[in-house]
């Protein structure tokens, strides 16, 4: 795998991509294909590949490569594309700041802090994990509390275990994968506790990681207190009522030395905030147009930095779009602006992109708020007229819904806004 590119860096680049995970690497390739000459990809790790490097399980790439790959294999495939080209990749480096003139404050091993000018920026920093504080679990602050991703890193890259007897809070995909991984390593995984009445991870992970290993999944139950002075000694768990309030009279203690937290990801939005980009409060990522451009010209974003994806294949697709757009922007060939705003309606938490154009084909990604069977996805204009409807067998918050929209569909629609609903079918 690539580590650091030893060449001297240029003082200016057409496109600077922040992050060399799947999003950043795909975007870099696409930017070059679209006409950008000088591209720099920056990553803080010593190896490119992003979080995929520690995801040694398989299940990646069915859409993108038509076969099931492990995380490192997927990363290698994408990286191979980059290596073939004249793209600068600098690892073990860090983008400290990007100012409004797109001047990048970069830290590298070779040169320390330096300033680099970029015509376009692609933000592809990925996501961070939500911590115990995000859900205010009271109790003590002992050693032995890990996010699932951190435990994954320890086990898969360092050959170390986070503990001997673990409780998992949250049923996010990384947590489910780790329940299986730790079980295989001989750690006793006592159970998975999920606040919601349904699991938060993909169904295939529930089956393959919990059911196949007899790990109990406690729905509508959460950790309400952490105990232990030096190291975790036990956690108190309690069922929750319909309003998600813990029922303390039904609480019980679970002895363990480790608490793994897998309660979701948040876009890594340090740079997005420094750039004062408009942020969608639902995704916590920047608001983007149909070309993945943010609220500041020449700044594009893709992957988990925009919204949390469940499949890397969709990250790749989104990143290719962002990279292509950045390349065209640099070449002065940006398409006309969007003319339709998308408004999340019933049972839709958010839509990405936030705006579209009636002139082009789009893939719209969205997340629903609650599970629903035999429903339909409707696009409605502000007058209440249904412009488009698609039947869905079921929706699930854990599974991103995507909608391919051809320009013909919006042929009769004029400038304005469209409400997006995922609701029970009108015909019952």
């Amino acid at each position, binding site marked *: 795998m690539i580590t650091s590119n030893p060449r001297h860096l240029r003082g200016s680049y057409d496109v600077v991509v922040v992050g060399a995970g799947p999003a950043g690497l795909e975007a870099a390739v696409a930017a070059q294909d679209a006409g950008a000459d000088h591209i720099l990809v920056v990553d803080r790790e010593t190896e490119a590949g992003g979080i995929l490097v520690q995801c040694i399980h398989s299940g990646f790439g069915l859409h993108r490569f038509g076969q099931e790959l492990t995380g490192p294999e997927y990363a290698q495939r994408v990286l191979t594309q980059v290596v073939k080209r004249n793209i600068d990749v600098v690892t073990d480096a860090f983008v*400290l700041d990007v100012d409004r003139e797109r001047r990048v404050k970069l830290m590298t*091993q070779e040169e320390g802090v330096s300033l680099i000018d970029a015509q376009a920026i692609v933000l592809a920093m990925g996501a*961070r994990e939500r*911590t115990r504080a995000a859900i205010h679990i009271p109790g003590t602050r002992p050693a*032995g509390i890990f996010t699932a991703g951190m435990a994954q890193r320890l086990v898969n890259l360092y050959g170390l275990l*986070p503990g001997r007897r673990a409780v998992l809070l949250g049923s996010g995909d990384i947590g489910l994968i780790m329940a299986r991984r730790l079980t295989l390593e001989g*750690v006793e995984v006592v159970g998975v506790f999920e606040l919601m009445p349904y699991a938060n991870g993909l169904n295939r992970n529930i089956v393959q990681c919990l059911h196949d290993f007899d790990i109990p999944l406690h729905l509508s139950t959460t950790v309400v207190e952490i105990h232990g002075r*030096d190291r975790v000694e036990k956690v108190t768990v309690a069922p929750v009522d319909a309003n998600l309030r813990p029922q303390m009279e039904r609480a019980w203690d679970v002895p363990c030395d480790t608490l793994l937290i897998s309660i979701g990801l948040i876009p890594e939005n*340090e740079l997005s905030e420094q750039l004062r980009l408009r942020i969608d409060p639902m995704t916590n990522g920047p608001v983007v147009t149909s070309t993945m451009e943010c609220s500041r010209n020449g700044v594009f974003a893709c992957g988990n930095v925009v919204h949390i994806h469940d499949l890397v294949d969709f990250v790749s697709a989104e990143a290719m779009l962002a990279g292509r757009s950045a390349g065209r922007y640099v070449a002065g060939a940006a398409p006309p602006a969007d003319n339709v705003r998308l408004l999340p309606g019933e049972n839709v938490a958010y839509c990405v992109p936030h705006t579209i154009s009636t002139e082009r084909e789009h893939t719209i990604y969205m997340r629903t708020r609650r599970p629903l069977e035999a429903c339909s996805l409707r696009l409605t204009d502000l007058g209440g007229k249904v412009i488009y409807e698609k039947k869905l067998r079921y929706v699930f918050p854990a599974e991103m819904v995507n909608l391919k929209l051809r320009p013909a569909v919006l042929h009769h629609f004029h400038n304005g806004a469209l409400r997006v609903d995922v609701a029970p079918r009108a015909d019952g």
Partner: protein
Amino acid sequence: MLYDVLIIGGGIVGGAIARELSRYELRIALCEKEVEVGFGATKANSGIIHGGHHAAPDTLKGRLEWAGNQLWDELAAELGFGFERIGELTVALYDEQTPVLDRLLHHAAVKGIPGVELWTPERIQQEEPALSHDIIAAVYAPTTGVVNPYEACYALAENAAQNGVDILTGFPVLRLHWNGELWEVMTPGARLASRFVINAAGLYADQVAAMAGVGNFAIHPRKGQEYLLDKRLRGLVKRVIFPCPSPVSKGILIIPTYDGTLMVGPTAEDTTDREDRSTSAEGARTVFDAVRRLAPGINEKDIIAQFAGLRASADGEDFIIGPTARRGFINAAGIQSPGLTAAPAIARMIVEILQAENLPMTLRNDFVGRAPHPVHFAALSTQEQIALTLRHPRYRRIVCRCETVTEGEVIDAIERGASTLDGIKFRTRAGMGRCQGGFCTIRCMELLSRLRRLPMTALTKRGADSWLVCERQEAVNGDERAPGIEVGDA
């Protein structure tokens, strides 16, 4: 080992005393039961250098609060820890509270504290627009400052060590015995002897006093829960905001910490357990209900960390400082708020007490009061960062992305004495940001492991049984492979 003075307790008070005494020709030791200094009440302190006008002038607290306040600028400049006088407002929400404001103004007048004045609601809104419109008046004090209490404690202890004080961490005192000439101090690893013993044992000061045979007071732990908020709220409130205080507590505050992030708290809960540093759902409710009355824009969803500390309050609620019935045994006990503020003044008071007790005190001519200031990369300008990283490659890698802490700063911290993950965190801020160590924990562990030549499995969060990771099972249990799997010859 024979000492002139042995200090029990390595919190901010013990640290300040050690550093002040290190100016003199004395053999000094400081015994701390935890693996690092500052790991008790100091670590969870709110970090406020009080304006000087809160405690009544006729109490020891009241005298030392203002005396201590005035010593912090020089200390911070000499030792290179962050300190800024950001000012404070004590706000009244009801007419019944205005006598409290009058009392604060009176204290300020009696003590001669400059710049303390009454603000109108208009002035308050102009200067602090995030505060509630229900506030009817406030007392402003420009003298209030903020520090990182643990940074100050490390700086004091390190400077004391530089000047010859033995800082003995992991040295709990088990017994004290006066042999007619000296105090014999028994610890698990060593027997120490000293002419004088200073009791700065915080939560355990009553037990230490009892060991010396002068157990005539009790420490009543009072828990305080604090909630640290996301840095996106930086600047929302510019000064420390106090409600009108009650008799037992200064109430729940909004504190713009030295690093700029907001912290809210603390609660005041009497407890009997000296090790109970747990937070609770009720505590969070109490804090945020109170804070919303002061600044409606602050709420729970911005919490990035929560913790609790225990105040070492004594009977009578005043400090207990002075010689005792046992010769050579001196108390610096019952140090609750404003103990951090008062600490440098307490240290000077201990010097006077030792002089009065006829310990010969000669100023050293080789005392080094200025310590090298630790690098704080995030606080440097771009030009300074370029210059630093050009000269020193160790600062070219970011370890903690949330707080922009470099590898060099973590290495510096370890070289200065950090031996645990918390020791690194409290010296450098690595792991204190919004991701709470999700990214940097393993990197810090790797650096600790490399520099201390310890396996990762031997590292701890804060000593004792706070182990972080363990070996894989096969390495522990030997060659126990699953049955049925043939292991071929290599």
